[in-house]
């Protein structure tokens, strides 16, 4: 089987799975779950195979498929892997089976529809990552909203309507501005040489004026920044997380948030390098504010899910910081941090879901001393907590270390030239690791330590299924913490191209 074909299969497997699901009777929930599991496992296998086949150090796209879709507008169905999306595709495929396995007992309402939605989300997320054509990207980007909206709206908690509306309005608002920018871009490419094109590769070569770039970047950035989310556009996230079912939270934290950072990495900054350089101080500041603000908010929450939701704001601040260092260390660190956060936050949300299933409470005040009651649960929770803190040997450390090192590395030469704000921001970001420990250890202490108590007596510890899910996640966390080099090698070329694209603009600036 050729790799390009496999990539298409990878993308469309969830669609096939969804159609097959339709054929199953509603009452046979076990069959539905089994089928979904098989399909997503097959997808994971494909993704892993493609990851192994992916050539490190080869410039440009790999395993490309490019078919005309709307020839009159120059729209193509164009998907491919490159270093930037490779790990995220792998992460998406990895979390798919975990989401389904995690929902084995928690979802009992509309089982078929639920798994259909999971398939739908899987399809749109992979599509967004794989798309190499702006039109296609936008279609997937928007389509992603629908299943997520339904998932929170149907299987969510009490205030789900408020949460879904907020989530939808925020993201839709960003998308509309992005659409306007895309129309403008398409229009410009048309008038430039007569052959319309939405291909990323063509758009990279556009060479727009700085002012136009700034406006367009602002439109794109708003959409991406809402998705990340960066302070001050983050308030939809805690609400969405709190109301979403566990599976929704895992998908949201695990993959969906990375759409924003991936958007910056793949589109926002490289498409408009001059504007990106101009906006760097702003974005860097907002990134550091996100780190600190998120950490502060996580400290004063009593809802376990909100704590983790705000920790996401903080952790994705590191990603954004890494992206605007424009050096290899920072960018590579940002990519690793994205994957790491997907695993760790996804895992933590799964664990919150597991305890919620048993006790029906997310209030910290109800808990204490779970380490006594649920030893296995506590071990896993502790490991994920430490990974969130960024303790060495876990994936969190790899990401944060490289990001911070990159930030410092790019800040110091500027400091020597008399520009001190990047150094101050980088130092503040380093202090963020203290704040991170503060709220995560508070969570661990209140939940796991102290007098043993829980809202419900007679808790049972993790089942084999749950241990299997968490075990796989924890292994991945340690693997990235201990042996990140394989990942780094595969992404290095793309990170280098990203860096060069933006630095070329800076050099151009100097010449002008």
């Amino acid at each position, binding site marked *: 089987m050729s790799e390009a074909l496999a990539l298409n299969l990878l993308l469309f497997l969830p669609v096939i799975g969804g159609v097959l699901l339709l054929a199953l009777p509603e009452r046979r929930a076990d069959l539905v779950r089994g089928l979904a599991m098989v399909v997503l496992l097959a997808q994971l296998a494909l993704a892993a195979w493609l990851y192994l086949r992916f050539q490190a150090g080869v410039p440009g796209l790999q395993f490309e498929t490019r078919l005309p879709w709307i020839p009159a507008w120059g729209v193509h169905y164009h998907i491919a892997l490159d270093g930037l999306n490779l790990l995220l595709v792998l992460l998406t495929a990895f979390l798919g089976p975990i989401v389904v396995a995690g929902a084995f007992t928690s979802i009992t309402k509309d089982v078929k529809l639920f798994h259909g939605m999971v398939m739908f989300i899987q399809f749109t997320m992979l599509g967004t990552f794989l798309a190499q054509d702006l039109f296609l990207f936008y279609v997937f980007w928007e389509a992603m909203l629908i299943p997520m909206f339904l998932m929170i709206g149907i299987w969510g908690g009490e205030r789900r309507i408020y949460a879904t509306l907020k989530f939808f309005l925020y993201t839709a608002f960003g998308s509309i501005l992005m659409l306007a920018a895309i129309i403008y871009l398409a229009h410009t490419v048309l008038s430039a040489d007569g052959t319309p094109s939405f291909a990323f590769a063509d758009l990279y070569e556009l060479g727009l004026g700085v002012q136009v770039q700034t406006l367009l970047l602002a439109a794109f950035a708003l959409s991406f920044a809402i998705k990340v989310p960066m302070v001050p556009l983050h308030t939809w996230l805690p609400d969405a997380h709190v109301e979403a079912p566990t599976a929704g939270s895992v998908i949201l934290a695990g993959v969906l948030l990375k759409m924003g950072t991936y958007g910056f990495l793949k589109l926002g900054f490289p498409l408009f390098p001059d504007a990106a350089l101009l906006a760097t101080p702003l974005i860097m500041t907002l990134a550091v504010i996100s780190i600190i603000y998120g950490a502060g908010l996580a400290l004063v929450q009593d809802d376990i899910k909100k704590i983790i939701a705000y920790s996401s704001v903080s952790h994705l601040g590191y990603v954004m910081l890494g992206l605007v260092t424009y050096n290899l260390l920072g960018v590579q660190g940002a990519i690793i941090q994205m994957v790491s956060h997907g695993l760790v936050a996804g895992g933590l949300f799964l664990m919150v879901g597991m305890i919620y299933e048993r006790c029906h409470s997310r209030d910290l005040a109800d808990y204490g001393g779970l380490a006594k009651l649920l030893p296995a649960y506590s071990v896993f929770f502790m490991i994920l907590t430490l990974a969130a803190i960024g303790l060495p040997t876990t994936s969190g450390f790899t990401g944060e270390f490289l990001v911070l090192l990159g930030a*410092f590395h790019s800040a110091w030469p500027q400091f020597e030239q008399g520009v001190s704000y990047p150094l101050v921001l980088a130092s503040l970001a380093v202090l963020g690791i203290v704040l991170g420990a503060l709220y995560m250890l508070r969570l661990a202490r209140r939940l796991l330590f102290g007098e043993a108590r829980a809202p419900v007596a007679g808790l049972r510890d993790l089942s084999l299924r749950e241990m299997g899910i968490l075990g796989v996640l924890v292994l991945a966390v340690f693997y990235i913490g201990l042996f990140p080099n394989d990942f780094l090698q595969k992404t290095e070329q793309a990170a280098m191209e990203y860096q060069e694209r933006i630095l070329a603009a800076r050099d151009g600036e100097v010449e002008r």
Partner: protein
Amino acid sequence: MNGLLTLLVLLPLAGFLVNGLLGRRLGPVFVNVVGVGLPLAAFGVAVWAWRILEAGGGEPLIETVFTWALVGEHVFEVSFYLDRLSAVMALIVTGVGALIHIYSIGYMKGDESYARYFAYLNLFLFFMLLLVLGRSLLVLFVGWEGVGLASYLLIGFWFQDVDKARAGRKAFITNRVGDAGFLLGMFLIFTAVGTLEMDQINEAFAGGLIPVGIATAAGILLFIGATGKSAQIPLHVWLPDAMAGPTPVSALIHAATMVTAGVYLVARMSGVYLEAPAASTLIAVIGLLTAFLAATIALVQTDIKKVLAYSTISQLGFMFLALGVGAYAVAVFHLFTHAFFKAALFLGAGSVIHALNGEQDIRRMGGLSRRIPWTSGTFLVATAAIAGLPPLAGFFSKDEILWFALASGQGGAFWLWLLGSVTAFLTALYMFRLYWLVFLGRSRMAPEVAEHVHESPWPMTSVLVVLAVFSVIAGWFALPQYLAPLLPAPDLRFDWPILHWALIVFAVLVAVAGLVAAGVLYGNGGRRAEAIERRFARLYRVLAGKYYVDEIYERLLQRPWLWISDRVFLRLGDRILLDGSLHGLAALARRGAEVLARVQTGSLHWYAWMTLLGLVAVLIWMWRYV
């Protein structure tokens, strides 16, 4: 032999994994075999590696294990490095570590989380070995944070007690503050030198190509990391609370090994500090101040472990004083001797606590020397050693420190020596006070406790004896000379042997004075001490309150941060500004829609009128503009 260092590091890790995963099911005997056997094996391997090192004439052994990350031209390797400095450290860590593991068999007997305890202890050894054997700052940092984790887990070992869990968290957070400084220092060095391999960093700085400013900044930042791990002012607050952990843990982690990591770091990075006199001075001053202030606090503590904890902080201060005046090898020498006598003291304290069934307050002890003779005897030896009585271990190392504090050409000064000597006097005083209150005089124990006093089982006493023996002889190893090729002694401002001898005599007199003062104050039922206490009640309260540093931190850092998070970020930022404006917009839209909806009355005539009006407006507009 290749792979030896890797084996050394991996042995305790294997112990952690086996005991952590299977220990509960396999029973205490199995846990003992794994949990104690592997550290002993590690000690054997460490000795072996040390002999290979010596056979090679001190040429460092380097083992590259794997490439952690390769980013552009930057290589981050996991590799181990054994020279005489790391060999000494590895021997202390595995040697004292193994002894304390043996002791723990007796101390932790019957604890329901026996396997977990040994798993954590092995995990600590693993990270500590990473720390001392790592070749690059990165590996060192991994170990550095790892021992912090082990410390966190062990302080909060009895996690049902909220205070203990909280003490663990405090230790972790305080250390993290230091770690942030460490990270920044590491980044700065990486940016300046382009590598994290410590031998290459030292060479680069020694080459004189790096500006003094960078060396100073890097030195201070790394030292901030060291103040966290080694409990120096201003980050010393966690160590006394860390005594919440099991006593062998206090001995191993919070006295003998982990807290000395900061000393090791500075000694290891001596190349940087030699280029940064300002940073060195800072270290000397902070170290001395810490030594002095901690000693004053130790004078009035009533918890046996807290006295020892402040004593540890004080002794670490002495080590930093030595580092600050360029006497790196001497600092390591004191680290070496301190490891033995402080471990002996802590384990002795553990034995006392064990004998008294958990009692830690020295006001409810006394007269124990006849009831638990082995403990008492070894405790006395260790006390004499820390007080600096010749020819015990502490005498040699402390004397060297004081000598260099005065005579070093790299920042030695009279006042450093003077305050150091005062602190040495205080050390003798508070240690003999402790001995007096615990072992001599009349018994102040509760009768039901006094009935059950018993000497500890042999795994505990035998370890005490071994450590006591080392507390005697450890000073006889000429460690500074052994390390001299690596860490040469600083130039002297004046090389007068007579002065040196005079100082030695003076130091002995100071120690004896401390002993006598303790005898005078606390002999005879401690009435004189109480009189002094009443006379200086206010000073006493300040000391007993530990200078109120904890309270100040809470007021200045903890509460404001919580206040900002709660009031500014959550209430003002998220609720009022962000969600508020969002809800405001939503409300505006709804209000507007309500107003517009009024137009729709349902009356056909009204509609017709509106149509007419619209028509007229369009016509006027067309007439005006088209």
